[in-house]
């Protein structure tokens, strides 16, 4: 080995690289089942499409009779599941206005300091809500009846959305970034604790939700009457 190669080895050992995250359990939990017998390539592709929601701007209608875990490429921190029947939410859960669990009120200046990201502010907003139940913190805004929530997207899901057969899931792009619009029927929103378990005291129903990624930030806009309205609000965030 030459002197230059020895120096390169030393450099390699001195590089600052974060430790690899423990993502194997997360990966295993999301693997689609594969049958033992060998599948032709086309069926493999069909399985891949069934397990992954591709960002294409088209409505995705997973068969309502099966349980699918849908992943939206590029949209982090959110896992969406399609189930044949929506589980009965706990008593007290409802649509907007009840037990939103958005945290405590906080000024905009304090909000920016309290989380590990730069929040996107809706125009004309003077206050925010802060919660620390997700890594890096969560900021929410109320714009009339519309709830906007932002958090640093992660590879590990922080929010689980459970869609029944009537809910519609549409792939969208917001300012070129991937997203999804959930509409037509209420879906369940569940927050996942650090160990990946559902925080059962924070399950509620939600309707008309736009989810998208903005430079690593996952943004959720809930309660706009239409997709167009949600998109307009999304584009107004700064």
């Amino acid at each position, binding site marked *: 080995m030459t002197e230059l190669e020895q120096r390169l*080895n030393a450099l390699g*050992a*001195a590089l600052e*690289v974060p430790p*690899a995250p423990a993502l194997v*359990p997360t990966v*295993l939990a999301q693997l689609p089942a594969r049958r*033992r017998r060998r599948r032709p390539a086309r069926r493999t592709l069909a399985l891949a499409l069934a397990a992954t929601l591709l960002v294409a701007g088209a409505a995705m209608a997973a068969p309502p009779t099966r349980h699918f875990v849908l992943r939206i490429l590029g949209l982090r921190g959110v896992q969406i599941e399609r189930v044949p029947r929506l589980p009965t939410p706990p008593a007290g859960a409802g649509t907007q206005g009840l037990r939103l669990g958005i945290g405590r009120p906080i000024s905009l200046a304090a909000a920016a300091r309290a989380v590990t990201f730069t929040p996107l502010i809706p125009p004309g907003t003077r206050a925010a809500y802060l919660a620390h139940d997700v890594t890096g913190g969560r900021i929410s805004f109320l714009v009339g009846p519309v709830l906007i929530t932002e958090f640093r*997207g992660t590879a590990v899901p922080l929010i689980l959305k459970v869609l029944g057969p009537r809910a519609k899931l549409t792939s969208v792009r917001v300012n070129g970034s991937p997203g999804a619009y959930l509409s037509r029927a209420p879906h369940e929103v569940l927050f996942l604790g650090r160990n990946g378990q559902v925080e059962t005291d924070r399950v509620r129903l939600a309707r008309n939700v736009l989810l998208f990624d903005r430079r690593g930030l996952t943004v959720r806009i809930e309660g706009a009457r239409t997709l167009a309205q949600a998109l307009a609000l999304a584009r107004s965030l700064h």
Partner: protein
Amino acid sequence: MRRRRCMRLEVVPAQVTPTPSISAQSEEQTLIAAAKAGDQRAYGQLLERHHAVAFRAAYLVAGSAADAEDATQEACMKAWLAMSRFRPDAPFRPWLVRIAINEARNRRRGAGRRATLLLRLQEHPAHGHTGASDSAPSAEAEAVAAADRAQLSAAVGRLREDDQLVIAARYFLGLSEAETAIALGLRRGTVKSRLSRSLARLQAQLEEGGA
């Protein structure tokens, strides 16, 4: 044999590339065969062995821990979906690294970052010097070594990405020549010649900079 241990990194340092024993190789092939047949637990064991080097590669390429994590997770998913096409006698590690590098490149492109590797140095790397004695190097020696690393890192940073990748694969990820060929999608002969030219360019960079 010169041994170096880096206590802060999960990946085995580049110059220590253990040759797998025959039993380790056949154990891996057993896992691969089981994973190809749909055994998720076997696949999990493969990932436990190799996801760290895939993450390291993704981090160097993507330039962001969050993107590297995403890229690695996506690579693990895609590798699973492609297992039926994976040759049972092929090595798994460089194949996973290749998918992770491609995913990392996609994210880097999406983020608008430059096509260059992220080479950030630890402030106080672990000492692994073995000389006549095992005592830690003096402050002066460490300062000289740190300056050398910084200079070398800057010189590598000025190379084209192709040169950076082949150097990174061999010296920063600890891949063998054969593994580097798989990880970078090259023929083995191409790896040899590209590495030779890359090192020559790097040497020229260092000499221009007075190193």
